[in-house]
């Protein structure tokens, strides 16, 4: 029993923090969020090359590091802390996991090396409410191939991903299946959506008779819906870790401000109204961290517990992170309300993350269901 980061995970986290402090300070994120792509490809390449984030989960035989979700957790914390703009959540937590959990060995061998190297990015297109049982895309047999039609709104980094794993309903089988669609596939129209949180991009994907060869229907040990559910759970876990990092960033900003800002002749952090709020934020941060670590551990070692653990982590970390970001503005007062201060970037990211991959109330309903209520 050792419920703590391993040494190499601590080292990875330190390296991630150093890299992001150097290459993704607030100004860089602000630049990236004004681009159409929504991220700085140079940063992404650095994360891939210097830190191996894109290779983290990929088996060593396929050019990866062969690590598990518990290694991704500390990296995601740092991504959240830095409010970094990079297609990590989409490429690794969604795309790579989809191939790991849903693809055959052959399919993995074909696609994972490109993802591991950082050369390609990926995402998964699924129901925006995070429901793994439904899709607005239909797949039908069309000669030897599959033909995909439909619309998916709010696909994470959907306008830039080189590879899109599309969840589609196969009416003939009354089941969901996952299909690999290159970003530039004929018939695939991708539109970046304007969003309130400008640090992470969503896109609308329209599929008009997109043709997918049989070899690109995912064919792993888990059937489509089950694979998608596990992918979403892993993505929730990664997002939960990101939320922990962002919440801690908000706490750190708040504490720093509370220590130095003087009103009524005292640092405002000496007032209980502020001090106790910071204390509650620490309770939130540490409890959220425990929840996110546990969910990462379950993803790696206890798949039976993953559905509940991921739901718990995502619900808990979402609310902890949103509260922290909201308090951060309140504690900063007027200055926290300005565009030039980072508080609003955190606040908008926290709000967007709250709803991404399912809202807290949905996750608690999942838990209630799993408890047999």
């Amino acid at each position, binding site marked *: 029993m050792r419920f703590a980061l391993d040494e190499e995970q601590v080292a990875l986290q330190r390296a991630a923090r150093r890299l992001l402090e150097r290459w993704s300070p607030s100004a860089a994120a602000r630049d990236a969020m004004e681009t159409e792509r929504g991220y700085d490809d140079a940063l992404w390449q650095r994360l891939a090359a210097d830190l191996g984030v894109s290779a983290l989960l990929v088996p060593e035989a396929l050019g990866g590091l062969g690590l598990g979700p518990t290694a991704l957790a500390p990296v995601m914390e740092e991504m959240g802390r830095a409010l970094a703009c990079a297609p990590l959540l989409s490429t690794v937590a969604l795309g790579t996991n989809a191939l790991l959990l849903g693809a055959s060995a052959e399919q993995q061998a074909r696609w994972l090396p490109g993802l591991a190297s950082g050369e390609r990015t990926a995402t998964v297109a699924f129901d*925006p409410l995070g429901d793994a049982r439904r899709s607005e895309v239909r797949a039908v047999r069309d000669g030897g191939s599959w033909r995909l039609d439909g619309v998916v709104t709010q696909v994470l980094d959907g306008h830039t991903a080189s590879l899109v794993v599309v969840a589609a309903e196969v009416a003939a089988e009354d089941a969901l299946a996952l299909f690999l669609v290159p970003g530039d596939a004929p018939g695939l129209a991708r539109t970046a959506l304007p969003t309130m949180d400008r640090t992470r991009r969503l896109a609308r994907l329209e599929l008009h008779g997109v043709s997918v060869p049989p070899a690109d229907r995912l064919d792993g040990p888990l059937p489509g819906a089950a694979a998608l559910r596990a992918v979403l759970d892993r993505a929730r876990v990664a997002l939960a870790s990101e939320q922990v990092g962002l919440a801690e960033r908000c706490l750190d900003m708040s504490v720093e401000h509370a220590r130095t800002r003087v009103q009524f*002749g005292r640092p405002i952090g000496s007032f209980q109204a502020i001090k106790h709020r910071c204390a509650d934020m620490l309770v939130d941060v540490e409890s959220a961290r425990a929840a996110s670590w546990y969910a990462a551990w379950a993803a790696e070692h206890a798949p039976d517990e993953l559905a509940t653990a991921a739901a718990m982590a995502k619900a808990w970390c979402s609310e902890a992170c949103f509260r922290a970001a909201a308090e951060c503005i309140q504690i900063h007062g007027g200055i926290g*309300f300005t565009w030039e201060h980072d508080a*609003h970037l955190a606040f908008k990211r926290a709000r967007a993350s709250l709803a991404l991959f399912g809202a807290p109330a949905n996750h608690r309903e999942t838990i209630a269901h799993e408890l047999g209520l």
Partner: protein
Amino acid sequence: MELRFSQADEAFRGEARDWLEAELAGAFSVVRGRGGPGDEEALHDERLAWERRLGEAGWIGLGWPKAYGGREESLVRQVIFNEEYARARAPGRLGHIGETLLGPTLIAFGTEAQKTRFLPPILRGEELWCQGYSEPNAGSDLANVRTRAERVGDQWLIEGQKTWTSGAHWSDWCFVLCRTDPAAARHKGLSYLLVPMDQPGVTVRPIVQLTGTSEFNEVFFDGARTAADHVVGAEGDGWRVAMGTLAFERGASTLGQQLAFQHELDAIIACARENGRSQDPLIRQRIAHAWSGLRIMRLQALRMLSAQADTELSREGLVTKLFWATWHRDLGELAMDVLGPDAELAEGPGPGELTPLQRLFLFSRADTIYAGSNEIQRNIIGERGLGLPRAPRPTDTRGQT
């Protein structure tokens, strides 16, 4: 106990409603619904013309004494006018700082010369005012003002910086709280000056807010000047005058604001109906709670209107700001949760291109901060409303706001 308005007051309401409907159906239809939070810059010229039309028709200074050109209407009627103004979705007021803050302050503390000079242009909607109180180091702690004014001959020479000044770039005048006696401690040694904005010593710089828009400004006074007799109240008496202005700001006239809130709540309910979340029991609870809070806000305002005593000191008056600010912030969060994942989708790619509910969500975070943060409000309620003892402090802060 009677919650209905008198027949005479309802007749007045009809008069106001008819006038607003008629005016806003004609040439002014373009300004209808414009100039609200996040939209303050819209159609400035048209809204200036609207101010003058309001003045012509005698709707400015409704409650002012007749001796100073007002109509001396009761608080109830002022509130009724505000309600109808909001109900008609008449445009955001450019002249409200002058009408509701500076005007009453001059009437209470000004010289006859000041009243004669400044009140009529306000009533005609011709001179616009802004407020120079907050500073980077004097937010909640207003007594910490550092902007200095020095008497040089027949003028005041002003050096310093104000912030969170709304409408500074379109205003003709600013009332500025300045330190005129640097030796005096905190709220002593302050004076309340009237300063013309159109002069070389005044620079206005917009503050970009978290919405990507700019409704507020920084104002830099760099050798700005005003006439020696443009001080309200005695030199060194500015704190008392400024506190009077804040009392006007926190008065009972929140019923118009509540109608704006009602429009927001209605939009949220409509949205819930449309996307089906009106059937979600959790959302139903929160909508019912929000509806109750808004209804209670109105009831509290009616209580204040009904009170014989000074509303500023009543318990229900003290809790008003904290209640509505917190309610409004929660409403913004409810709006996002009702929208679900769609909450993210903005109107366009530009930083300020947000949907109305996104603007609500973001702007309402300021409500618990400005004009006395929730923390300050709780201090005031605890100390003035409940008589709880003050904390030991390194400096005297009796006049904190």
